[in-house]
């Protein structure tokens, strides 16, 4: 049925308009036109600016208050289009496909010039991007030199939200069954060896091409490093760029707009069609879901790309600096993010923007979960103090639309708040378990007395997550931040000279060991040891309760040449070399079979912590051993354990599993406990053996002849399964 409120009431320079709806915020297609709605508490004047796509000069600038013509008789008439602190207007008969829009704002509050501290930063001469822009142009093609003379660099576009999902839904894979693969969209397929069709390298579309690889490896979740629109040219010196080489904002931890996918990550990006970019990402999610793979986004809500008082005015600071940012009394930006500014996350306006964004990604893009960069900032009040009941974290945990989404916190920030194990969880939040990472690394390299710490990791860190269960723990050895797995076993020290800061940047405490030589070597024994250590590491990860995460490329021994902070490189340091798959086929096979082993055994994927009670068969759900059965040595570097049933009973039928981890340099004999129920031990894994004897495909494990003892090689992991 036709609406009675769609006819225009006012005309401005030939554009037919009427008062709009204050929500939803942003630009929304409504019957007959486009509704524009934007909040500002402190602006008292606002202008809507419309552009044809890519044009430097506006098509028209329509004020939200002033003199207009009456639509019916063209008489001059006063009009105002505002509800509360929301400017809203519907413009009829626009071609949304060819449109870009901005706002200009002014205020009676005193403004602050760039470079100076101050509370308000209104500048009516600037074009401001909509914080709710669902598509953003201006960086449509990765790395392409921007037209710096364009006064509107990041250009809000319209998205038509009618993608046909054909019944697709979030997969809702139980948290305990997840195996996460952390990936950089561009890095995954940008390398010439990736073999994706030309024009697709480094894009969402190319990930779709690589779904068979992911399925073969066995992961069921990819975690994408930031894909919200960011400016890869942000850190670039312009002359560097013109010479064809530059430090870029390659990782993307610097958001321009929270509702828009990075256009340059789309193969269709160069077409400058916001809907098409959105369609491409939605299609990727749909195809991943068809193949049983979830999508988690790494989201950066702790700061924006506007930097400190020296930074550019893109959107937020020109719209309502005092609302969007944490400011001290003098008007300096608090810097809990370490990047110049801090989003004012517990201001109710910003809280709602974060919620609206995440709801949008969950509902419109069917995203399965989110990993929150420097999440501890989200628990701070507007003056930086950690809140007892952080309303944003609580709201996210209770949110109805995010009700089945994974919520994962990086539970620390750059302001010194470290909450691993104590992040306000509200029964929902998981954490990147940084303590797990350190414990595995130190146990792996043979530090003394680490078997106790490793036993906590194996159990899903009940020392940290009592009451929350092992699914609160995202276990990992490596992630984008720091060494790759190969570099972890090849370097004692970081080698970050390429970053241009004389190796000062990046973490120094890597808990790494180069196995006897710093960097690549031809020494066979060292290379064999490194290979074994990589297998040991992934075995430890897959054998531990909680949610394992592996870093893109670790399965084929990717190296970043000892650089542990490659945020700025758009080159082979960050691009995955697909030829490694053949070169390191044995390692790939080991990863694949270790993952398959985890999936085959529910006993490795408990929802709750072990209760130390006897299980149905009279054995404890987990029992601890050492070189002597039933006698663990909590101060050594050898650890063995036996799992005999799933804590929550679901896995009563699963096979008992015995694991011996010998991180001593030399071989050690491990006395074996008798397997329960008159079963006998079979050999699944022995990392001291060369491939293919290092691991057997689940179901093909041969009987282990010696039922009383297992001589486990130095720095090796062995797994037996009782059948």
């Amino acid at each position, binding site marked *: 049925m036709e609406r009675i409120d769609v006819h225009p009431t006012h005309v401005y320079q030939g554009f037919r308009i009427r008062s709009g709806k204050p929500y939803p915020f942003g630009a929304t297609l409504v019957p007959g036109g486009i509704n524009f709605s934007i909040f500002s508490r402190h602006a008292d004047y606002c202008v809507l600016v419309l552009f044809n796509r890519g044009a430097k000069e506006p098509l028209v600038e329509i004020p939200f208050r002033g003199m207009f013509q009456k639509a019916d008789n063209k008489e001059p008439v006063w009009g105002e289009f505002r509800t509360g602190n929301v400017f809203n207007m519907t413009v009829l008969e626009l071609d949304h*496909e060819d449109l870009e829009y901005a706002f200009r704002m002014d205020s009676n509050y005193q403004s602050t010039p760039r470079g100076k501290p101050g509370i308000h930063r209104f500048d009516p001469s600037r074009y401001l991007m909509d914080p709710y822009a669902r598509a953003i142009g201006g960086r449509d093609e990765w790395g392409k030199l921007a037209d710096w003379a364009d006064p509107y660099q990041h250009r809000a576009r319209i998205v038509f939200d009618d993608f*046909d999902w054909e019944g697709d839904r979030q997969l809702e894979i139980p948290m305990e069954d997840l195996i996460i693969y952390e990936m950089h969209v561009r890095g995954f397929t940008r390398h010439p060896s990736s073999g994706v069709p030309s024009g697709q390298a480094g894009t969402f579309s190319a990930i779709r091409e690589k779904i068979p690889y992911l399925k073969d490896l066995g992961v069921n979740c990819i975690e994408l490093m930031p894909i919200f629109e960011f400016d890869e040219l942000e850190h670039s010196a312009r002359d560097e760029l013109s010479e064809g080489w530059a430090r870029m904002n390659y990782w993307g931890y610097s958001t321009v707009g929270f509702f828009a996918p990075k256009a340059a990550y789309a193969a269709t990006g160069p077409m400058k069609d916001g809907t098409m970019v959105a*369609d491409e990402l939605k*299609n990727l999610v749909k*195809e991943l879901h068809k193949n049983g793979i979830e999508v988690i986004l790494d989201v950066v809500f702790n700061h924006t790309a506007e930097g400190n008082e020296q930074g550019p005015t893109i959107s937020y600071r020109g719209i309502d600096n005092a609302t969007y940012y944490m400011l001290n009394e003098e008007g300096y930006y608090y810097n809990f993010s370490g990047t110049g500014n801090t989003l004012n996350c517990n201001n109710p306006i910003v809280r709602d923007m974060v919620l609206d964004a995440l709801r949008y990604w969950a509902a419109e893009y069917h995203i399965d979960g989110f990993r929150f960069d420097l999440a501890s900032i989200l628990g701070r009040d507007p003056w930086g103090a950690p809140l007892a009941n952080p309303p944003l974290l609580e709201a996210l945990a209770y949110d109805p639309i995010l009700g089945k989404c994974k919520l994962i916190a990086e539970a620390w920030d750059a302001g010194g708040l470290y909450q691993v194990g104590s992040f306000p969880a509200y029964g929902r939040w998981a954490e990147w378990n940084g303590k797990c990472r350190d414990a595995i690394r130190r146990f792996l390299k043979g530090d003394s007395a680490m078997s106790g710490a490793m036993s906590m990791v194996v159990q899903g860190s009940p020392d940290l997550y009592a009451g929350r269960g092992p699914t609160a723990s995202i276990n990992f050895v490596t992630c984008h931040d720091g060494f790759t797995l190969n570099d972890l076993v090849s370097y004692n020290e970081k080698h970050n000279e390429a970053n241009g800061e004389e190796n000062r940047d990046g973490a120094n405490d890597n808990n790494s060991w180069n196995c006897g030589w710093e960097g690549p070597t031809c020494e066979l024994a060292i290379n064999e040891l490194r290979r074994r250590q990589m297998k040991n590491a992934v075995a430890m990860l897959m054998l531990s309760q909680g949610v394992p995460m592996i870093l893109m490329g670790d399965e084929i021994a990717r190296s970043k040449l000892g650089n542990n902070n490659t945020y700025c490189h758009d080159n082979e340091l960050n691009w995955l070399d697909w030829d490694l798959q053949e070169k390191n086929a044995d390692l790939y096979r080991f990863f694949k079979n270790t993952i398959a082993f985890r999936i085959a055994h529910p006993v490795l994927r408990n929802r709750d912590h072990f209760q130390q009670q006897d299980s149905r068969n009279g054995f404890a759900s987990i029992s601890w051993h050492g070189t002597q059965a039933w006698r663990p040595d909590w101060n050594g570097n050898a650890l063995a354990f036996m799992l005999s049933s799933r804590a929550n009973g679901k896995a009563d039928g699963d096979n008992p599993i015995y694991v011996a981890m010998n991180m001593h340099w030399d071989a050690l004999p491990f006395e074996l406990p008798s397997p329960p129920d008159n079963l006998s031990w079979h050999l699944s894994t022995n990392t001291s053996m060369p491939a293919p004897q290092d691991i057997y495909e689940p179901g093909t494990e041969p009987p282990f002849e010696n039922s009383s003892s297992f001589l486990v090689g130095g720095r090796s992991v062995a797994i037996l399964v009782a059948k």
Partner: protein
Amino acid sequence: MELNIKTVDQLTVVEPLGDIDGKTAPTFQDGVLAIIEPGSRILIDMSGVSFMSSAGLRVMLLTHRKATGSEARIVLVGLNENILNSMTATGFINFFTVRNTLDEGREALG
């Protein structure tokens, strides 16, 4: 955008010439819908189209669905690489029957 329509061997061949986007999409839709009858076999030769926007893709799909609903059949041929890539990237390709050449298109329509 121009739209040439001719009938060859009981097959209707539609030849759009020019971009299909938000502005030209209605022309395309009106033209194709007008020739759809139950049992029609329609070959759309896209070799004269250099660019299709997201609105173009949508109109194409709506036209295709209406045809299917009328028990007509539509096959696309002659898509350039750019259009093929964007249809693949966005998944629209899955809704259509696509062939490379006119001959293959004729064959697909039986």
